[in-house]
């Protein structure tokens, strides 16, 4: 987002999008809910990617949030949507708190592989745990809100849409503030050169861990949304192709703009549902071609379509520098 955009304007924007949902047809509501939920987890990946690390295992926290919410909902009858999101975020966050510091010292491909390995360990455990329904998973009841239960499916859809847009919107605003803060800039410095950051007296590991924790919290909350939207959970939440899709959204968006994450996520959902409709057996093919096209023609993501100020020059010079240093292992 541009520097001139004040947080109040952003809050107004979120409110406007939420209210606009009233005018949208029902099929777009559930689409937008999934898109907002995916945008939330992809936002986490973008936050983490600013330190130069890409997680290929966000499915771990996504599934942790989803399963945590589903188990608590079924055991204690917790159906409140807001409480479920908080529980999901907590589950993801707690796991992120444990995992983050352990893997913060890895970088590049090893970071990606380790996160992927951890999510696949979780997947393997979930598939084989008969208590959790094994590979079939299990169902959860319809969510409520502040004691109101929604019997009209349209109202229920709108409720989910509103909550997911508001939560994701506020996460986006928080991320924008974070990116502009001292901590956000230090994260960028870690990507450029973590040893120099250490020389300056900051702990690169701690910066990565905190960003990882934020990504995990976002992923956990996103898992809660996915659960509420599908009212069903299975180990597929933790499978590597699920995580791959989230990285896909993050790459599509690029790391220049928070708004781009939402646009990218919505674009992906639209492409998916239209190719589901018209090319039911080849939507992965469409997705793959789409991804290749974006990487080829928009190397800095969808965000580069509308962010063309001095930032562009700055980023292209740093990109040039990294390519020069790129020969170093």
């Amino acid at each position, binding site marked *: 987002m541009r520097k001139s955009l004040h947080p109040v304007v952003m809050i107004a924007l979120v409110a406007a999008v939420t209210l606009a949902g009233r005018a949208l047809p029902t099929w777009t509501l559930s689409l937008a809910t999934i898109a907002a939920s995916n945008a939330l987890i992809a936002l986490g990946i973008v936050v983490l990617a600013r330190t130069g690390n890409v997680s290929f295992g966000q499915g771990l926290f996504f599934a942790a949030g989803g399963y945590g919410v589903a188990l608590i909902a079924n055991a204690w009858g917790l159906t409140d949507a807001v409480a479920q999101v908080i529980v999901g975020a907590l589950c993801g966050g707690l796991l992120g708190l444990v995992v983050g510091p352990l893997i913060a010292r890895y970088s590049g491909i090893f970071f990606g592989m380790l996160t992927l390995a951890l999510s696949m360990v979780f997947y393997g455990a979930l598939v084989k745990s008969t208590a959790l329904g094994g590979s079939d998973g299990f169902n959860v009841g319809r969510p409520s809100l502040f004691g109101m239960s929604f019997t009209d499916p349209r109202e229920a859809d709108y409720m989910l849409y509103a909550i997911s847009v508001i939560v994701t919107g506020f996460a986006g605003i928080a991320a924008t503030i974070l990116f502009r803060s001292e901590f956000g800039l230090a994260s960028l410095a870690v990507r450029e050169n973590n040893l120099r950051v250490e020389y300056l007296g900051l702990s690169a590991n701690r910066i990565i861990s905190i960003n990882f924790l934020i990504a995990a919290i976002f992923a956990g909350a996103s898992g809660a949304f996915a659960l509420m939207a599908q009212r069903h959970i299975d180990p597929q939440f933790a499978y590597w192709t699920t995580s791959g899709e989230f990285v896909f959204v993050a790459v599509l968006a690029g790391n220049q703009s928070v708004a781009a994450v939402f646009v990218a996520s919505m674009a992906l959902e639209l492409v998916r549902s239209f190719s589901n409709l018209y090319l039911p057996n080849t939507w992965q093919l469409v997705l793959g071609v789409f991804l*290749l096209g974006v990487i080829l023609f928009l190397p800095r993501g969808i965000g580069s379509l509308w962010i063309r100020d001095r930032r562009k020059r700055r980023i292209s010079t740093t990109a040039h520098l990294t390519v020069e240093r790129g020969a170093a292992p």
Partner: protein
Amino acid sequence: MNFFLTIILDGLIQASWLFIVALGLTLVFGVLKILNIAHGSFYALGAYIAATAVTMVAARGLPPSVGFVAMLLSVVLIASAIGLLLERGLLKMFYGRDEVVLLLVTYAVFLILEDVTKLIWGVNPIYATQPYELFGNLEFAGLYYVGYDLVLIPISAVVGFAIWFGLNRTVIGKIVLAVIHNEEMSVSMGVRVNRVYAIAFAFGALLAALAGALTAPKISMQPGLSSDVIILSFAIVVIGGLGSVEGAAIGAILVGLARAASVHLMPQAELFMIYLIMAAVLMFRPEGLFKRETARRI
């Protein structure tokens, strides 16, 4: 005693074809510095092509040994052609980008190939069991094994030795090693790095497809094959060290044994075990078991 022997033999049978897949993956990573997610798709492609070849040969009433040869030949030809085409036509455009971006390019290729195989061969399971009876049944220390399974072990040993010999004892191999070691220096010494890239990628695809062909008679081919295999071969090359042939062998044996052991001892822990080993290796030796630590430039 027999029990352990069973685990070890089963593990080695698993390790034999996993080794061939991992060899291709590690070679491509060593030369092109790309962790190729589409590698699993080449495996699946090999398996499917082999099934088609075997069925076509069987339909003409020829013996299964002809089918075996036909499937290997067709797979080797088609896979290396596809590998060459992909590298020259697509990957070439993305060199110099971030390694994560290249990873995503191969992810896109994986998605595309996944649907292409579905379009060509459909979503129902396909079988090609004729060559499986080719070597009869063998008795080994009181255990009965399908000969085909046991034959896989020497085949993969031969493939591994051929790769090792080719890399370390021939001029072409030395050139490839030079590119792995230092690309810039090789360019300045007159090596046509682009050509090495193309050959290495095609050869990696060939190895994956060869492993797919060799396992085709043992399994049923259906969608999802490629994502299962890539996840196993990732674990192997990460355990062994990316870009290392010895590492791929050790990693394949470890993963094969882990799979066999968990199948016999606690079937619920299979994937879990493999990834636990991978995570443990990464924790203590992030560069893998067989890779020397390299000094980093600041």
